[in-house]
């Protein structure tokens, strides 16, 4: 802990971007508070007792487009929110960078694309993104009802921008959620995420 504080201090003083640690599977997912596109504030702890999916999103990123253009991501959101899972899309794009949208633009996009997540949270200063060490869009996390992280990484195993690959890929998020909902251990709980870098400030 002392070491972490010292590292952070040195980084802050010298202006060097500190390397963020990846979260540990099984450890409590860090608490955060963010406001959604409708102006409602959410704490992660509001959702204790439910599975929570965090999806880092940027609709200008071709990897995100891959999963939204054919409705793959929306389908996944619907499938699991119907089963009582809380799905939070998080946008950490800074204002003026790709993927950033005003609340009105977001709500229009949600309606137009049929986005079915529980809420879309705006993290324009990137605090929560960096807290979770979200590297890319889409970067996916799953938190269990006890508030512990049970999956982090890619959405599926086909690293590409080609929507045609979706049909033949294994969706890690679906596999993990289905296992966890059935009370079984998650077979693959860490994968290397792929996508565009998160457009931090």
């Amino acid at each position, binding site marked *: 802990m002392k*070491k972490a504080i010292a590292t952070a201090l040195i980084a802050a003083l010298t202006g060097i*971007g*500190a*390397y*963020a*640690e*990846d979260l*540990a*599977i*099984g*450890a409590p997912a860090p608490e955060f508070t963010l406001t959604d596109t409708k102006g409602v504030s959410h704490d992660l702890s509001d959702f204790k007792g439910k599975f929570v999916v965090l999806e880092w999103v940027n609709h*200008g*990123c*071709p*990897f995100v487009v891959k999963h939204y253009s054919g409705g793959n991501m929306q389908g996944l959101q619907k499938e699991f929110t119907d089963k009582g899972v809380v799905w939070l899309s998080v946008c950490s794009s800074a204002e003026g*960078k*790709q993927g950033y949208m005003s609340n009105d633009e977001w709500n229009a996009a949600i309606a137009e694309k049929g986005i079915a997540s529980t809420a879309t949270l705006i993290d324009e200063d990137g605090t929560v993104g*960096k807290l979770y*060490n979200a*590297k*890319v869009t889409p970067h996916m996390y799953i938190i269990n009802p006890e508030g512990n992280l049970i999956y982090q990484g890619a959405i599926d195993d086909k*690293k*590409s*921008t*080609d929507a045609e690959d979706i049909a033949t890929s294994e969706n890690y998020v679906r596999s993990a959620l289905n296992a966890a909902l059935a009370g079984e*251990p998650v077979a*693959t*709980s*860490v994968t*290397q995420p*792929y*996508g*565009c*870098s*998160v*457009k*931090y400030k």
Partner: protein
Amino acid sequence: MMIRKLLSMCALLLLALGIEAAPVKDKHVTAELMAEVSAIAPGQPFWVALKLIHEEHWHTYWINDGDSGLPTKIRWTLPEGFTAGPIIWPTPQRLPMPPLMSYGYEGTTWLLVEITPPADLTATTVDLAANVSWLMCKEICLPGKAAFTLTLPVNTTPVIDPGRADDFRAARVNLPATETDWTFAAHATQTSIELTATPPAGAPALASLYVFAREKGIVASAAEQTLVRDGANIRISLKREVSEDPLPDTFTAVLVGEPSLARDASRTGLDIAVPFSAPATGKAAPAAAASTSANASVPRSLGFIIVSAFLGGIILNLMPCVFPVISLKILGFVNQAGENPRTVWHHGLVFAAGVLVSFWILAGLLIALRATGAGIGWGFQLQSPAALITLSLVFFVLALNLFGIFEFGLSLTSAGGSVTQKQGWSGSFFSGFLATVIATPCTAPFMGVALGYALTQPPVVAFTVFTALALGMAFPYLLLSRYPALLKKLPRPGAWMETMKQVMGFFLLATVVWLFWVLSALVHSITLTAVLAAFLFAGIGAWVLGKWDVLSRPSHQRWIGRSVGLLFIALGAATALGNVHRAANEPETGGEWEAFSPERLAALRAEGRPVFIDFTAKWCLTCQVNKLTVLRTEEMMQAFRDRGVALLYADWTDENEVIAAELAHHGRQSVPLYVLYDGTAAEPVILPELLTRKIVTDALNSLN
């Protein structure tokens, strides 16, 4: 005739024009596919290049794209019998986007591919079609693609195209070299990959060095790479990426040094493939017994580890700190011998279950602690004063019980820890449990390997290894309880048992002394006084129990006696636990033993002195035995002096991060660990965990 010749010349001219597919610009990158030859020959491999010209600040990606991105792909459609090799990637550049780091190319780059035509090629021209796709990013990312067809005539020998010579020369200069005069060694710890680079004699000093790991998901690309000069060697510590996948056997990377590490200094990059090794591969350890613990190489087959863990578990029974419990348990077997063999067997099983469950709890705790990032290893429960106080009180009271000061009432039988329990499943279960608790500080030989391995592995594997350890530890009990024939060889119960019980009480008291001594290293003297007072209260409590909580008394007196007795014991516990004041730990150095620090070690090694390091802890009984019977003997000290060996003492009694890191560096999670550096740059020798004077002397004799 003339016309035919003209026509054929025209055809050749057309073909020549068709050799190159025109450049394609898609958004911010211009791609062009080109062959090094203007004509190919059957069976003769030739090179093609995908030239990518990026607009300013735009980039495409290397095979390991780092934190984000996508490597460029070429999908070939080739005539029958043709094969295309993999992309030969040029040396990448760093593309920092704090807090992220990606790897790729800006400016102009060439990706080379070798194509091999079939030996029995009969066609006069061939079409090589390629669909190329890439991801280009500046701030934002865009996918790009292009389709090319190279049409090449077939000749008897290949014809080099002079018009492409510049491109291919530039392409090859950008490739990482494979020849070098440097040598490399790599080993992995739980959190890092340590690469040691040894320069050739007379090499100029390196101004900088960066390691591009070739495989994604091995090294955290955004983490800083720390370079340490270690004599002539350079040590680079690379942070490992969090991953569930096992490490490959070989670390592959491209090194970019200033000046270049390649033999051909015009190449900036150097390709390396270094097998991961154990920290102690430099020399074989002197004793045969050392072989299992010394070769703590990181990727081990799970089967080997499970067998080692099982054997380690059996050997745990022989360790000094398990002795009191094993003796008591054998006493229990004597009592059970008169019973139904089936019952005895079931007791054995329940005992094994107790061992198993306690190992699982321990594994769960270790995994949870590791997850929270605490650098704590084996034996950690004896770094907690509260745990030490509780254990010493329990043992003290148990000793009084064995001396016959009081007998356990029925209400206490299931409270746990009643190791002398004659019957009852919970007694068997908890004695299994207790055996484990006491055993953990003694890391038997073999166990270092299993533990180090388990803690670097996913939880499922870690649990498997702990299960094997537990089964090994329970094995002798299972054997005895399954084959009561062996039990019959034990003496028949009788008056001698009472004597034996009392003797066992002294063993328990000895354990109390040891626990107290461990505690003394951790806490202030006030706390120690409080613990002694707690023994007094517990003694009074036990005496009250023995005097009034007996069957000869009326039940109301018994009830009061029991309450008062237990109250005193509780008061004792409260007194001790309520007065825990941690003391700063003073390492036990002095004389020729200096306190360990990585800086001191580096300084001594820089002087070229041999160094011996004693990684130890007060709570580690094996360490103490080694220290008193071997290391601190006058004979050994003289041997160290004769060879000018510097002696470092690394005391891990508290949860010291620096020492934990150094242990991890040697692939260990626990003490004892004995390391001998020979004064050269070579990797150190690791001595076995149970030392003899001969082992140490032999190791010293191998120094030159």
